[in-house]
């Protein structure tokens, strides 16, 4: 068997220091250390680093941590709904300890979404109810528009994509909501009201800080949630029109979750 070199032993030294090396491997490493000053020194250093790491003092979170967080939550609405950027991130801005997501990311996402919504509505139109959503077709066409360089314009474009997609879905819902029992429709409208509130608050936050990446992200997250809910509502109308009570119940259950 070929003799092991110091390089071969290098990874095993970590296991030895961590106490996870046993049996024959451990005996071989220990035998090597008796004759190799270099690896012995490395092992000693690794032990010191490990011990120092374990000895690092615990630190306490800031005393006002909860009150700061609570203020942020006030603007975040209900759990699971995004409505406001973190105060910390707002204070530090995009150049601080925050992720910068270019505005074209929103535009691209909005364009993809518009196409997805258009597809949803196209499928919907294949039902006997006929043609119901001209706005969504416009949204899909708009998705192919050239990207422009201005961040502000791109954000406006992304917003427009969402608005067109939402308008198309709302039109379908308006026409078909009579097929849904009033109690379910009321719950869906209530949920939509919560999301609309989040959208309004996000717009206000973005107006106050137009360049805040967090505020942009928050608005588009709220818009995405609105589109998701509307898509579920349209799917519900579809199932009701088909008389598929089980499918409708599954959708309602998914919305409730």
């Amino acid at each position, binding site marked *: 068997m070929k003799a092991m070199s110091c390089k071969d032993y290098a990874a095993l030294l970590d296991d030895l220091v961590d106490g996870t090396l046993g049996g024959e491997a451990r005996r071989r490493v220990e035998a090597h250390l008796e004759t190799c000053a270099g690896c012995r020194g490395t092992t000693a250093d690794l032990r010191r680093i490990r011990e120092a790491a374990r000895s690092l003092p615990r630190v306490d979170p800031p005393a006002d941590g909860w009150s700061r967080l609570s203020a*942020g939550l006030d603007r975040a609405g209900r759990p699971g709904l*995004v409505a406001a950027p973190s105060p910390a991130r707002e204070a530090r801005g995009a150049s601080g300890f925050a992720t910068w997501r270019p505005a074209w990311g929103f535009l691209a996402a909005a364009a993809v979404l518009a196409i997805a919504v258009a597809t949803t509505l196209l499928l919907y139109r294949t039902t006997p109810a006929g043609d119901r959503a001209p706005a969504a077709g416009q949204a899909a066409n708009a998705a192919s528009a050239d990207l422009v360089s201005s961040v502000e314009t791109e954000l406006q474009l992304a917003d427009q994509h969402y608005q067109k997609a939402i308008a198309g879905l709302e039109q379908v819902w308006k026409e078909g909501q009579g097929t849904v029992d009033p109690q379910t429709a009321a719950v869906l409208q209530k949920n939509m009201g919560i999301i609309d509130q989040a959208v309004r608050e996000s717009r206000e936050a973005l107006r106050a800080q137009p360049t805040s990446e967090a505020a942009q992200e928050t608005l588009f997250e709220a818009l995405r949630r609105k589109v998701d809910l509307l898509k579920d509502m349209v799917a519900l109308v579809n199932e009701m029109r088909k008389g598929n009570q089980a499918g409708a119940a599954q959708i309602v259950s998914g919305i409730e979750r």
Partner: protein
Amino acid sequence: MSPSNPVAVIGGDRDVVARCLGGDRDAFEGIYRQHAGRLYNLAFRMSGGANDADDLLQEIFLQAYRKLDSYKGDASLGTWLYRLAVNLCLDRLRSRQGRMDRVTDSIDEDDAPEVAAAGRPAELNVTRLDLERAVGELPPSYRAAFVLHDVEGYQHDEIARMLDITEGSSKSLLHKARRRLRALLG
């Protein structure tokens, strides 16, 4: 040795989350009070300073609040929060350093050169401040492996699950992190 995680009473966690989702702010404050200390220490060691750690802690809990409806109770709430926190810290570190590579990308980097025995003190003198400064110079993925294993006491299988990498990758990252630290401290 694993760190002393909060007792994983998943049924209880589900109840608390359900209360939060129902709008019970006191329930969410309870979650904050129970887990803020552990998550703050992680954020502090990963970011290297109190200011960034303060911001990170806020972000961790805001993100948790936003994502509470995705907690399915497969793991304890503490584990769910910790994993969310680790990945948020890594994202922020990478963003700050302009590195958008995946965790495993760094595995193929060359090892730091071994410190020659000659020309350096016979024994490495590791002070707290020196170690903290050196940890701050580690690439994000090295730092995550070192902080989670050597500072926080997690095992490689746990780190692998948290970072969504293999156990072997976790060992490799730790190995390289320690060699880099040795070079920095030598």
